[in-house]
């Protein structure tokens, strides 16, 4: 009676209804709204149900300046990479999400984490932290390059990929250990 089949990327149940336009392939760039996740089950569903596509989760706050710039780049490129990547925004201030914040050890805002087929993809960009991408991107094309590198590595079965960007375009930050 019921036929089981794997969900495709466009049928992610974590899409709230009002943000369906982002996923349904709108032609215009400007009016695309990225879905914001606030519950833990939404994040779980997203990670679990995105198949053969890179899942880009941005952890940040909507009001932060760097976050806004990053959000803008993400929104603009979401249609272009819609065939092999999905993007979602995670609100760091929600209490259910703190689990993830602790798990991924997110301190600097914004942080972008890549997943491929429910595996956490690490990227070696010359920074001390390979598990996430800190900061914004300097241009839309840089972001698309990074996502493409993650996709290729993921399709090959790698769990860590190297960053295709030259070092001057990678935002640098300093990791402090226990405020030292």
């Amino acid at each position: 009676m019921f036929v089981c089949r794997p969900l495709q990327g466009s049928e992610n149940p974590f899409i709230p209804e009002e943000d369906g336009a982002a996923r349904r392939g709108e032609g215009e760039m400007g009016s695309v709204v990225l879905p914001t996740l606030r519950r833990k089950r939404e994040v779980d569903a997203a990670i679990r149900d995105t198949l053969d596509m890179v899942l880009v989760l941005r952890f940040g706050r909507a009001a932060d300046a760097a976050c806004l710039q990053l959000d803008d780049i993400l929104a603009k490129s979401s249609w272009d990479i819609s065939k092999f990547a999905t993007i979602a925004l995670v609100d760091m201030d929600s209490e259910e999400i703190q689990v993830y914040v602790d798990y991924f050890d997110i301190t600097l805002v914004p942080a972008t984490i890549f997943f491929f087929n429910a595996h956490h993809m690490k990227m070696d960009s010359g920074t001390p932290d390979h598990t996430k991408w800190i900061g914004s991107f300097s241009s839309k094309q840089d972001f698309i390059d990074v996502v493409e590198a993650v996709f290729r590595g993921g399709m090959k079965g790698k769990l860590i990929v190297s960053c295709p960007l030259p070092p001057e375009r990678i935002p640098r930050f300093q990791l402090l250990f226990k405020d030292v």
Partner: protein
Amino acid sequence: MAMYTLRLSRSPPSPDSLLREAEGAGRRNLGGDGAAGLLHAGKTWAKIMASLADSFLADLDELSDNEAYPEEDNAEAGGADEDSDDDMPDLESLNYDDLDSVSKLQKTQRYNDIMQKVEGALEKSTDLSNQGFILEEDPELKFPELESLVHHPIDYARVVKKIGNEVDLTLVDLEGLLPSAVIMVVSVTASTTSGKPLSEENLLKTIEACDRALNLDAAKKKVLDFVEGRMGYIAPNLSAIVGSAVAAKLMGIAGGLGALAKMPACNVQLLGAKRKNLAGFSTATSQFRVGYLEHTEIFQSTPPALRTRACRLIAAKSTLAARIDSIRGDPTGKAGRNLLEEIRKKIEKWQEPPPPKLPKPLPVPDSEPKKKRGGRRLRKMKERYAVTDMMKLANRMQFGIPEESSLGDGLGEGYGMLGQAGSGKLRVSAAQNKLAAKVAKKFKEKSYGSSGATSGLTSSLAFTPVQGIELSNPQAHGNHLGSGTQSTYFSETGTFSKIKRT
């Protein structure tokens, strides 16, 4: 109805009186029952043509000797009459029967003869070209080149009349008869012409012929105007599309509605197209071929970029309308108006902007396999990076024998099996790649036959001090590294040997 028969039996009246009569008939009957009036007018029109042609023929006999007067086909002038004949069945049968008897009369020999020779009157260009043919004989003596310079027969007639017997063309004013460039060419050619002035008698004949041609032309114009006025009854659908003036012209030049209907649309498009440019006008700006259709309102209102397509479309639809009209399929003209609407809609559709393009998302990376190329060119390119036999030898080592190296003592690059004893060759030569071998073979075949001047003792082997003579043993497989199929342990040529025990 008896009037008609009377008319026939009388000798043909003068053309001018007939013309006047026709005009009067036309005016009188325009208001009245259209068909009868049309019939009357049509018949008088035929009579005009008959009379003109008759007088023309008579003078023709006097004027000149050769009458290579081409006999054209019959249908066209009959067409005008047929139109009026077809109108008759719409009226009471009484008239029709009477007309039938009259028509029978009209099928008499004399009428047929006249009509056969008259159809040329509807083929304006051929008729006038005949006139021109006659004309050209006489002025030919005086000004032979004029015929090739001025193509249109009416213009030719006018020019001949104007020039008369003048020797000096600067005294003749040709302004208004011809375009100024052609006038210039004519005057230049006249100054160097090889003709002589005409004799008095020839001059008179020439002027008469010119007058006759011009009269015919004027009559033709009158007939066309008349036809144009009646176009709404003759061909309502056609005139709905292209307008009555153009429809009249088309019918005139095609030789009747029937002939126009039989033409394919591509010919209809070219009816009335001007001939080639004269006198060195550049053809770089020559427009596409459009005839009378160029003057239709719908053509003029299309933007220039779409004119070729529009012209083809209008020609096609107007041919359809002409065919409808020739069988009287739609006397109200509604079909013609529908076709016109269709044409308008199509032209508007062409002018729509194209639909906006949607931006496509990027394709999935590595989803489309890369297109591998092959072929000779790629093989040649790959040879530059191929691993040569020398490199293969250098990469291998013999068991138990230390290899030599470039800096000695194990430092530097190792040479592997290069140059070691037992490799079967004195020195490693760069193996010729397959392509070069093929090319060399072809080249040798081509240059095999020398001219024979060389002596019989020469050979194609050339020895350089570097090479020395290296005769390779074709049976030595020692250095075959390319293929891995040959056995390196078992000899391929040797057999089991029997050692006799002594």
